[in-house]
């Protein structure tokens, strides 16, 4: 029931399926062994999301993560010809995100997708608020560059 949900979150932070599975495995282990810490004030999905995110960040910190960044091979012709960026699939977007350095990717995910504030990001990653903002700005620059290189999309955005 929550497997796809947890995997969707973990996949964004880890960059590959295998690592995401390990993160989800660890996260479910924590959920089962620390279920008594869930107080019911918020929906279970939110609590699970927080657990998965924290687990992924812990793995990033521990350095055990083997970053297998899959090379994104955009289908220039089809998408460029159609010009419909909105038709990009989730997997294609993920592949772009995967090209970001881990620190940029983590901050971008936390801020843009998961709705963390910079204060929360700074506390979670144990960095300064300025560093969080800086990483987010650089992540955006990287993504724009990727778009510009591959789709000539930067003018639209």
């Amino acid at each position, binding site marked *: 029931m929550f*497997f*796809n*949900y947890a*995997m*969707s979150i973990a*996949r*964004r932070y880890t960059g590959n*399926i*295998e690592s*995401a*599975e390990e993160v*989800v*495995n660890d996260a*479910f*282990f924590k959920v*089962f*062994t620390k279920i008594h810490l869930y107080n019911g004030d918020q929906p279970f999905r939110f609590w699970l999301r927080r657990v998965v995110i924290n687990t992924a960040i*812990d793995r990033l910190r521990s350095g055990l993560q083997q970053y297998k960044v899959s090379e994104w091979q955009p289908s220039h012709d089809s998408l460029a010809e159609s010009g419909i*960026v*909105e038709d*990009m699939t*989730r*997997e294609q*977007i*993920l592949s772009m*995100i995967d090209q970001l350095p881990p620190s940029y990717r983590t901050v*971008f*995910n936390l*801020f*843009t*997708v998961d709705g963390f504030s910079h204060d929360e990001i700074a506390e979670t990653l144990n960095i300064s608020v300025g560093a969080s903002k800086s990483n987010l700005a650089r992540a*955006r620059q990287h*993504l*724009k560059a990727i778009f510009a290189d591959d789709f000539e999309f930067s003018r639209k*955005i």
Partner: protein
Amino acid sequence: MSELDNFFADKLGEEGQFPRREKNWRSLSKRLDAFDTGLVQNTGKVYRILRFWQAAAACCILAVAGLTWKVVDVCNDNMTLKEAISRELELRSIQAKEIAALNSAAVQQETYSRQVEAESAALREVLSRQQLSVEFKSNRNAAPLFPTYPDTAPAPAIPTEATSPQAQTTPTDSTATGNSAIAASDLPSVYSDSIQLAAGFMTRGAIGTDSGQMVIKRSQPDSAALVSTPKIIEPARNPSRFKAGIHLLSGIPLPNEKGVSMLSGQGISAGFRVWRDLSLFATADWLRFDISTEKYIPKFHSHHPHQPPNGSQQEKLAKVESAQRQQQFGLGLQYSLPLRTWLRPAVRIAYTMLRVSPELITFKFEDQDPGGPGGSHPPKYLVEKTESKLIQNIWRFGAGLEHETRNWTFGLWADYSNNFAAADLTFDAIIIRAGLQYKFN
């Protein structure tokens, strides 16, 4: 948020579809089983805190044991001192009584002297009444009127008329010649009273003449000799024989394989000096190291003696991972070389038992034929939980340097542990230990 952010948020916020793999759930199930049995293979913050408190608790126990030992030692010293003080006070009381008795005897002796003086005056009066001139020469060579006897010599018998006075001659009588002598044969019998009186003197004490004065010799005990010199009371402290302490250790497992981390841990130790430079010692060490090898090495998985079979011929074991914890308990002999140097070298040998804790071993199998039907297959993981195992007959040979202060011993040791039980049962290791021990004096 910019348009770019919204674009990514919308796309990435969608829930993807991922294939469910049975091995993930099996792995999770085994981890949960292991958790239920008390084996927490989670290197999270809680686990680190538990390890810290484990070490802190060991230190506290050692400190409390040391302080307790010290308190008992001080109590024993106090008891010894109390007994010594009690003996000293008792001795002084006896001496005071003796001195008081001597003073009393001196008073009696003085009274007695006065009595003797009076009796001497009476004797002179009797002699003068009998018109005998008894001259007391001031010459030192003059013979005493009455012979002196040593204190231990028996008093002469009282002469009577029946016995010849010549027979009563004493060694000092040999000088009784000439005008200073009174020949006993010349004495009439009427002098018998005087002689008896003189004999009475002799029975009470030795009487001699010196410078014409009758001197009463009394053997007074030497009070200074009776008062014994107070002894210096030394606390009953034996040279330190027992010591205990803690140490940190780091080591290299042998054979040195790629992917096997260094050993690290901590331990406690105790030593008891049996005879001169020979000591009996015991250690308990907690060790930990990580294994992440590309092949299965039985020596490093002594409680998992076989490699799990591959699922298929295409699958090949790609990685073996585990975090192993061990406890080593050693008992041995240590000989410190009799050198008076700042750092004292020593050698030791110890019999060691090894307990390998339960652990989770992860085997990763990869598909050797990624170009087959269906494309590349994801790697297959197999997680196996092991039981604890006790391995004996491991011997440890070590050499080290120690620096001793009054209460502490600092040591640096290099030990080589060799497994004599079986060749592949466990690995050998070179372990460096650095620690300190408190000497319980």
